[in-house]
């Protein structure tokens, strides 16, 4: 066969692909060569010397992990010469290894244990003293036990090659070589857990699950992460209905075994002691736990009463896009068909709907690029400077494309291209980085469009001078970047929350679609557009009909369905009398709206939750729902991959999966659903989908584009008095302010995960150190931030990733700050934008304790 070569391994003739390393070829011959430093994800380093083989005509033994198989090679690993040499290396590795397997968490899944059984000499030569390192806690989440280390450097190489975090290195030399961070500072990295997982021995282990298990005791359930839209496969490892730890398997899932801090360390909210375990009702101002029967009856009776008195349209429903496809489908069915209201919406409304609606209106689908396309692209145009935080695994694909495959990354965002020492940052590895003034990506898109689409089929575009004045990006840079994008063979466009969750979001996505069409980067192999989803099932929520404008299958719903913000407004006006909210928390997410007051107007508020959230606290009825660990179903990730979620543990306490609660309620409302499990729901979903679903053919995409181009299109020029652009010149005390996502958290849910809380558990405002210096700020010091309305106090943290003249505030802890930020509503999609504003930062005159804090 073409591209194949033949060689002889242990006397057996085998055929392998050209370029295969001997250690992989050995597997074809049924032999597993002992190895420590080799790992298929990493460039070989050939340092452990375990995988040696004899190759005919080469006098010295060779390492199989670094030798590419060649035609006609004759290789042996089964001869005494090789085995003695392997035993020799093993003797060296074991020589200094402690005999602490009984208390080592790696026991049972340790490559040293496994290979030592096969390759140990029976007699040792070592009568001297062992080298001993002190045990160290390597940051809050990782335990470092260097006596167990075999110096394979897999951890160091993973952290560098895959994560680009570079937090680890080998320290010292010779027999006292150890793994550590520079000058023994506490680990301050991305906490992806990759080093723990890739370590072949127990030298790096997770402190979050220390001594909690032996590997043979755990039950492993493969499922999909519940946090972001990357859609990573992971295994929940459980003992007796407790999630003990998370693991992932190399090469498996869309993430190919890589995880981020949220996926790896963010699991223990599942067994959190504050989980709601029984339904609750508010009775005469008092909250009490009741039976399911009680709560369901109450809900059904009151819903029926409201429907009878005010009509079905007085009832609205909002569902979280963390829910499964089956649940979202069933929810909209319950609302639309059983209750009969068009008012259905979901968390996708916070921004993803902009992408879903714009892309599907142009291309007929949102499935326009997959991770493979990113990895193999020659050019990536990214409007997501924070991707390594919001969608870290997708960012790994970009790192792979750029660092391993030589793709060019063009990053357009309002971040600095500087990086913090031990955290990766995509603008930092960009071939070209256009650092725009906050909130002006829209102008840059118009500029790029102006370069590529000379016919300006979209109507008159602003002049380059205007664009430069607004965004800070001049014509030359725009021409260069547009040229690179249009000239690419496989150009992939990526857009994140800077586009979807900010002013003019819907129009900006449409303009990006026009840009991709003008550049010829859709509809051809390897090119495409990927809209990042912040929550795990935002695309699913839209496709399952969990938004007011679509029925399942992106079929337009009749007009009149209210969106999330409209429902809140309608509640305030008294038009909506009852709301049924699943896993959403508008009281917290939309502090600018008087949500609490609006909800107090309601006759009935039903909430379905894991925890007693701000919204649940106001609810008349709270149904205790289950987490992703306790249910089956399917999530659709941002690429459009539909993946199975599997139940790992029984529901905590008396909680129930959302789909079951909907079924029970439908029963009580007199229209039983009769689903026995989620597979039955899914069958119905699939039957209800258009025939072209899920993937649309190239031809269909092309004809959709053709008809889009014929439609009359109008570019809406961003108006320069939109709120984030107000104010004077940045600098000094005046800053553009952005609320956004941190790598270590996701919404509020993750703040119930103790592992993640050990990394960050408090709010802080991030500032570039060069902006902090003239203000005389010290890291950790509390500052005053005056908002357009009101002010808050928060500690400052320094980050070189922050654009000069801007501030960043992670959204996971207190959202009080948003109260003071302006809220605007997208005219097309009703997405509420309230994450940005112009603020003044000032020192609090009273000196705060600054001991032990240094300026980095």
């Amino acid at each position: 066969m073409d591209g194949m070569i033949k060689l002889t391994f242990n006397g057996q003739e085998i055929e392998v692909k050209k370029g295969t390393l001997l250690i992989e070829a050995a597997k074809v011959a049924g032999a597993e060569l002992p190895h420590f430093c080799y790992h298929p994800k990493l460039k070989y380093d050939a340092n452990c010397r375990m995988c040696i083989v004899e190759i005919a005509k080469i006098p010295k033994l060779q390492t199989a992990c670094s030798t590419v198989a060649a035609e006609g090679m004759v290789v042996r690993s089964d001869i005494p010469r090789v085995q003695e040499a392997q035993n020799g290396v093993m003797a060296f590795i074991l020589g200094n290894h402690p005999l602490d397997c009984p208390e080592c968490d790696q026991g049972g899944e340790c490559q040293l244990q496994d290979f030592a059984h096969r390759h140990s000499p029976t007699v040792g030569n070592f009568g001297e003293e062992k080298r001993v390192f002190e045990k160290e806690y390597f940051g809050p989440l990782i335990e470092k036990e260097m006596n167990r280390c075999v110096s394979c450097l897999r951890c160091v190489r993973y952290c560098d090659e895959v994560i680009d975090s570079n937090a680890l290195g080998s320290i010292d030399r010779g027999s006292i070589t150890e793994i550590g961070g520079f000058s023994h500072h506490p680990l301050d990295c991305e906490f992806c857990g990759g080093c723990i997982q890739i370590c072949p021995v127990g030298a790096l282990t997770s402190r979050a699950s220390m001594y909690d298990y032996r590997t043979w005791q755990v039950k492993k359930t493969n499922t999909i992460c519940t946090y972001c839209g990357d859609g990573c496969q992971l295994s929940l490892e459980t003992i007796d209905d407790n999630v003990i730890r998370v693991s992932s398997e190399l090469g498996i899932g869309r993430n190919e075994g890589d995880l981020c801090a949220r996926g790896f360390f963010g699991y223990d909210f599942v067994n959190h002691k504050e989980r709601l375990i029984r339904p609750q009702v508010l009775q005469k101002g008092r909250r009490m736990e009741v039976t399911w029967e009680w709560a369901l009856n109450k809900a059904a009776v009151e819903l029926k009463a409201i429907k009878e008195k005010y009509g079905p349209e007085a009832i609205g429903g909002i569902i979280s896009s963390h829910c499964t496809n089956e649940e979202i489908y069933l929810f909209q069915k319950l609302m639309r068909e059983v209750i009969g209201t068009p008012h259905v919406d979901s968390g996708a409304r916070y921004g993803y709907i902009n992408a879903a609606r714009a892309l599907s209106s142009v291309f007929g689908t949102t499935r326009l690029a997959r991770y493979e396309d990113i990895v193999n692209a020659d050019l990536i145009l990214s409007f997501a400077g924070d991707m390594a935080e919001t969608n870290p695994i997708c960012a790994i694909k970009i790192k792979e494309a750029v660092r391993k495959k030589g793709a060019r990354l063009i990053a357009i965002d309002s971040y600095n291209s500087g990086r913090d020492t031990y955290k990766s940052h995509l603008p930092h590895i960009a071939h070209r980085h256009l650092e725009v003034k906050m909130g002006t990506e829209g102008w840059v898109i118009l500029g790029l469009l102006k370069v590529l689409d000379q016919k300006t089929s979209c109507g008159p575009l602003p002049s380059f001078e205007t664009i430069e004045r607004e965004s800070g990006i001049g014509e030359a840079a725009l021409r260069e970047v547009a040229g690179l994008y249009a000239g690419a063979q496989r150009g992939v466009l990526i857009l994140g929350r800077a586009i979807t969750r900010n002013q003019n979001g819907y129009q900006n996505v449409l303009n990006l679609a026009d840009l991709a069409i003008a550049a010829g980067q859709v509809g051809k192999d390897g090119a495409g557009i990927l809209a990042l989803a912040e929550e795990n099932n935002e695309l699913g929520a839209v496709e399952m009909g969990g938004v007011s404008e679509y029925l399942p299958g992106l079929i337009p719903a009749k007009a009149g369905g209210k969106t999330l913000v409209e429902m809140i407004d309608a509640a305030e006006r008294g038009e909506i009398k009852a709301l049924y909210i699943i896993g959403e928390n508008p009281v917290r997410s939309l502090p600018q709206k008087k949500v609490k007051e609006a909800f107090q107007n309601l006759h009935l508020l039903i909430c379905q939750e894991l925890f007693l959230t701000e919204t649940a606290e106001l609810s008349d009825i709270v149904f205790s729902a289950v987490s992703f660990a306790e249910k089956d179903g399917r999530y659709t990730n941002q690429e459009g991959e539909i993946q199975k979620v599997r139940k790992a543990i029984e529901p905590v306490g008396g909680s129930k999966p959302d789909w079951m609660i909907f079924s029970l309620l439908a029963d009580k409302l007199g229209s039983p659903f009769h689903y026995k499990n989620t597979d039955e729901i899914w069958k119905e979903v699939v039957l209800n989908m258009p025939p072209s679903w899920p993937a649309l053919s190239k031809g269909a995409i092309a004809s959709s584009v053709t008809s889009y181009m014929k439609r009359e299109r109008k570019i809406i020029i961003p108006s320069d008095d939109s709120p984030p652009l107000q104010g004077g010149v940045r600098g000094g005390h005046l800053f553009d302010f952005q609320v956004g996502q941190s790598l270590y958290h996701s919404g509020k849910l993750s703040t119930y995960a103790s592992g993640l809380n050990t990394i960050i558990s408090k709010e802080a405002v991030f500032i570039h150190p060069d902006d902090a210096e003239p203000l005389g700020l010290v890291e950790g010091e509390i500052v005053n931030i005056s908002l357009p309305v009101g002010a808050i106090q928060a500690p400052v943290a320094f980050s070189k990733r922050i654009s000069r003249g801007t501030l960043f505030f992670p959204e996971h802890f207190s959202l009080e700050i948003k109260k003071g930020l302006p809220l605007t509503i997208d005219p097309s999609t009703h997405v509420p934008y309230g994450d940005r504003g112009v603020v003044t930062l000032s020192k609090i005159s009273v000196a705060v304790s600054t001991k032990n804090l240094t300026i980095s």
Partner: protein
Amino acid sequence: MPTYEKILLKNMERPGYTGSLTDYGHAGGYSALEKVLKAMSPQDVIETIKKSGLRGRGGAGFPTGVKWSFIPKDHPGPKYLCCNADESEPGTFKDRQLIENDPHAILEGIAIACFAIGAQTAYIYIRGEFFSGAKILNEAIAEAYRAGFLGKNILASGFSLDIYLHRGAGAYICGEETALLESIEGKRGKPRSKPPFPATHGLYQRPTVVNNVETMMNVPHIINRGSEWFAAIGAGKSTGTRIFSVSGPVKRPGNYEVPLGITFREMIYEHAGGMRSDKQLKAIIPGGASAAFFTPDQLDVKMDFESVAAAGSMLGSGGVTVMDEDTCMVWAAMNLLEFFHHESCGKCTPCREGSAWLLQILQRIEAGEGRLDDLHALESLSHKIEGMTVCAFGDAEVAPILSTIKHFRAEYEAHIEERRCPFRSNVVLAMAH
């Protein structure tokens, strides 16, 4: 005492020679470069060096012309030459003398080599402790730029070359060619697993030649005087002269440039003046700390690559260390192991782990706490290291042990049986520890 024409040390032995560009010019300096640029093609240069039989003076003795010819010809993008001036092998101090006294001769050699392989950038990687050497080389590089022997369009030939001096930070291993490349790249100086070799995947993964200082310095002479002239000096496949650094209790320790192929006897008893206080010679390290020991009955081995290899050692770095009857061989092996243990980079298992075990056993024997099975342990550990490591350091660290056990087994046994070092009183030993 036989005398030989000096080639490399000739200039610096002229009275008043400072090594400045003027002095070097008066001695005919840069004429070879001019000849190469005006009248020769890169291929001509490579052929000339090949025919001369010049072999690397850094350790392995690899034929220099052949090494240059491995550099891919039509490779797009940059190629590099790195001149290895890390000279850290114990007992070797010849490059230092060359650098400090005739720096332009090295630069001229580098320039010719770069022309031959098509490199426009060269690095000189100099041992960190060579403070004055670094200063002198930097000044010489500046002079050469000013005079147009370096920089853009050298001697209007269209050939351009930049030379950068890179100072090491004290690790012996950075003299190993791939560790040297890593170090220049700004990484930890740790050897790379070979293949691939630097000729195709060298500095920044580009085709690269690494050559020793002395190797480079031979090049202009071969160009000026022809490959036949050079090939006629020396013995068989070991052509030209070599500078040997002779140290130990001899009457005249120092650097001696002689044609390859004279005997150790001639070197030690004629050139170096014989043993001090007329003590008995006991052992010789023939080629730097990494080479196996010789005994007095090997004094008539010829100092050329083949003869020394045939006698079970190597000519290595050219450091000849002489030991007399008062030297304890166990102590000598231990002393070398202290060095190797300290300098093991820690990358690969056998060397990292093995060096520490070996040293501990040797220290125990020397302290009078040896056991009879220690000798077996030393040998078997050594065999587990030999040939199993990423770089040649592993072979180097076991050479002194295996050769002293082979030649001086009785001395080891005496340490173990008498439970002390027969060469020292216990008082001295206690002080030494």
